[in-house]
């Protein structure tokens, strides 16, 4: 029903054109309204508990100068309409439980429903972060177990769960690197990042007070060793790498790279966003990395929540251990028959200190720990194997001539968990850009791959199917890609103007940035 309907008896104009024009959904005319625009003075969803203490006049408790002069303009609305409002908004989101979501580098794997159940247990969800450790032994043991498991997976013994996301883990990694060098009296000011690196890497480098030095990519899609040797000078603090890298390729020269970096005394940092390719198969620690971050919201099933929460724990080698954030969960062997005790150790003199409040995103830890318990070592390996199998199968489907002509693969090699195509051909031969292909996919009910990243691939489409998708889904997706290309060969306008079936069509992003409207106009 039209949200803007004047209501009452003024009938909305009948659909002008005659049927079949009238088949258009009347609701399509609807303009979305914010919850503030649905507010009506005097309505409420909240009933205050009774005031069981003396009703002392507020003025006597709070000086007028400190007291709010005008109430915050929050909505006034009853529960039924709040529910409908957010329910309605949810229907304007595409999500992983609805369809295929091959967003490269984001590891959109299934989020098991069990995890929501265990995370909601009052013993977890209702536990105060400052509860006396004696009364939080279950939570501390869970964290300790997770530290241990993550350490084993990365092949690095010491884990700090504290960072809140991948980029926070990256910052932690560079801060411990700085502490490590300074502790040895060294002051290094450069950090190397490959030109394929994710944007958070260079951004982190700056925030950590370092200068970014870019390293090139060779013709196989790996680090250009010559360039690396040239730039690996003794004022380099660290090389940040992800392996497999953002092209979805495993760098065959990883051992060589590690020795080059270590020879100049720098640390080797592993961006774990792509860990889903190698769990139980190859461990960053064994590759020579000193520091690793995990994205628990990628490899370890924390739901993405439309942009978080996540968690970005780090694992480090012995030499880095003294510097990791505090507090750290430690296990104390039990004495005379008692089981082990778990404690929060803040007495870590060389630690870089706290990176955030309390002990980290515990609710995320619960889900990731449940996932590890469900799969076990074998299951994690199988997950990575299947992720790589799915990626290569889809790569093979899309390598067929009628697709490859328009969307050639960036580096024609066996890939790991993801691969990157270039929209070059489509742009030149069909006159449609990668953006157009992505938008047309929306009409087909699939989420597009990551587009225009990595930067060194022209018109990039970065495709990560993950292990939890079926063969049929991959087949269907290949069919959709074909359909879009065939359609574009017939009429490129269709893709150029897509999408058509979404709640809104292409949006004016430039205009939004030019005159930013970032809140409801104050009443």
């Amino acid at each position, binding site marked *: 029903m039209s949200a803007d309907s004047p209501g009452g008896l003024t009938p909305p104009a009948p659909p002008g054109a005659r049927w079949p024009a009238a088949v258009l959904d009347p609701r399509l005319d609807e303009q979305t309204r914010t919850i503030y625009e649905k507010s009506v003075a005097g309505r409420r969803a909240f009933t205050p508990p009774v005031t069981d203490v003396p009703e002392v006049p507020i003025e006597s408790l709070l000086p007028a100068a400190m007291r709010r002069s005008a109430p915050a303009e929050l909505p006034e609305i009853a529960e039924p309409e709040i529910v409908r409002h957010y329910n309605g908004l949810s229907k304007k989101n595409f999500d992983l439980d609805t369809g295929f979501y091959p967003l490269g580098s984001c590891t959109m794997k299934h989020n098991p429903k069990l995890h929501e159940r265990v995370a909601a247990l009052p013993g977890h969800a209702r536990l105060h972060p*400052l509860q006396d450790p004696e009364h939080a032994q279950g939570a501390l043991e869970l964290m300790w177990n997770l530290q241990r498991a993550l350490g084993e997976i990365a092949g690095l013994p010491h884990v700090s769960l504290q960072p809140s996301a991948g980029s926070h883990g990256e910052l932690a990694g560079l801060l411990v690197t700085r502490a490590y060098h300074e502790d040895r009296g060294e002051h290094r000011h450069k950090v190397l990042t490959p030109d394929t690196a994710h944007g958070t890497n260079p951004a982190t480098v700056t925030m950590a007070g370092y200068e970014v030095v870019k390293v090139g990519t060779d013709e196989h899609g790996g680090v250009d060793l010559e360039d690396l040797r040239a730039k690996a000078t003794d004022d380099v603090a660290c090389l940040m790498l992800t392996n497999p890298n953002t092209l979805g390729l495993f760098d065959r020269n990883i051992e060589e790279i590690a020795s080059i970096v270590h020879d100049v005394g720098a640390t080797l940092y592993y961006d774990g966003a792509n860990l889903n390719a190698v769990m139980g198969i190859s461990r960053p620690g064994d590759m020579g990395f000193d520091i690793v971050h995990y994205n628990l919201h990628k490899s370890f099933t924390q739901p993405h929540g439309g942009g978080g929460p996540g968690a970005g724990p780090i694992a480090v080698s012995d030499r880095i251990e003294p510097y990791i954030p505090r507090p750290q969960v430690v296990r104390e062997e039990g004495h005379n028959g008692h089981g082990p005790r778990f404690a929060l150790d803040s007495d870590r003199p060389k630690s870089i200190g706290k990176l955030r409040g309390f002990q980290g995103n515990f609710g995320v830890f619960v889900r990731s720990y449940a996932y590890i318990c469900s799969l076990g070592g074998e299951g994690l390996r199988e997950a990575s194997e299947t992720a790589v199998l799915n990626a290569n199968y889809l790569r093979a489907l899309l390598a067929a001539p009628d697709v490859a002509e328009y969307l050639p693969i960036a580096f024609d090699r066996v890939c790991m968990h993801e691969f990157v195509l270039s929209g070059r051909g489509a742009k030149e031969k069909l006159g449609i850009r990668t953006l157009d292909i992505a938008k047309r996919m929306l009409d087909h009910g699939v989420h597009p791959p990551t587009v225009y990243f990595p930067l060194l691939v022209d018109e990039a489409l970065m495709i990560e199917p993950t292990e939890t998708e079926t063969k049929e889904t991959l087949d269907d997706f290949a069919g959709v890609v074909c359909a879009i290309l065939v359609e574009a060969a017939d009429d490129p306008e269709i893709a150029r103007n897509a999408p058509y079936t979404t709640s809104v069509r292409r949006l004016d992003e430039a205009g939004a940035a030019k005159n930013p409207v970032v809140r409801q106009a104050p009443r």
Partner: protein
Amino acid sequence: MSRYTSATDADRQAMLDTIGVGSVDGLFAEIPEGVRLQRPLDLPAGLAEQDVYDHLAALAARNTHADAETSFLGAGMYDHYTPALIDSVLQRSEFLTPYTPYQPEISQGGLQVMFEYQTAISELTGLPVSNASVYEGPSAVAAAGYLAKLETKRTKLVVSRGLHPHSRETLATHAKGYGMTVAEAGLDSEGVTDLDALTALVDDDTAAVFVQQPNFLGTVEELGTLGEAAKRTGALFVVAADPLPLGILEPPGALGADICVGEGQTLGNRLDFGGPSFGFFAAAERFIRKMPGRIAGETRDVDGKRGFVLTLQTREQHIRREKATHNICTAQALNALAGVIYLSWLGKQGLVELGELMLRRTHYARETLGLEAINPGPVVREFAVRVPDLDAVFERARAVGINPGYRLGRDYPEYEDGLLVAITERRTKADIDRLAAVLGSVREEAHA
């Protein structure tokens, strides 16, 4: 085969045939022998769903949660009631499982939520610009420090000792990275920021001054005067606030704050042993292009229909890379959603009613406990008192299922005998009287 993957042996074979590789191992041929794991991961075997549930339920049972005791513990996170409707919305997969809204046409729900959230934060803080969330309170403080550096190019940060200990430490950790020092101004005998000490510390190289509202002891600070002192030399005035008391307190934006950040847990989020919650970040108009993180903005589609997008992205890491205003990517969208639903549930009147209820109960508690106040000034939800025999009190209270609060000595040696008591709407007069009785009994014994 895992219950979360679908590839059967037949699927595997068919897929390998299409790929043209003989075996799954063949797909990993690129990995040098030397860096391959030659053994299974040393982890327990996988479990059935019911066994995983039992294991985690057994762990959870060893935690004393907020419903399992009468808790006066606060100190940064608080036991507020979260209405059931929040979970019912957050558990909808359309909010729970999507990624950051990179494709706005199929993400209007999440984007409009961000816009509504930004509006609510703007209303609470009295500042026009809010982002869509950062990690949590203390790292929001650190983000404000980074903005101050980018804005002023200065190298010094001044913090009040009334700022949450975690915020002060987190700020210091980050400041070390972006090359700034942190100086601290103490609290006076009334438990509020020492204006003279603060004034003395602020110099021409001071990029920002940080105070907390209410401060860690629960006292409402006089932001106006503190702000003036802070801004004398052109430093930014940053207020870290709990958004819930802001329902009845004059908003920082109206009292001179350039930036207001804070911990969002009190807005409809779980305690979760400390996370995930969200941090909010609001600022004056002139900082809009220096903000960290995602910001949703309103716009129109090609048909002129109203819609929302992620905007001002040229600030962000994925576009600006090393020149970005911050490195944050994944933030706390779902927790911010809980926040805006909570505020919509409380509503314009409810926010005030809740604040006034806490205010009255808190003052009732301070009087009823009858102990020496560390911070006699105005408080909203929390206050600090000196307790002669803290250990005995904890022992006695625990024995009757009461958690009396937070031991200030853990962070403030000067308040070794200090107890920080939080009174949310969950703590009734009867609860308060029970705590008072415990304190009384211990006091008597001491005298006996």
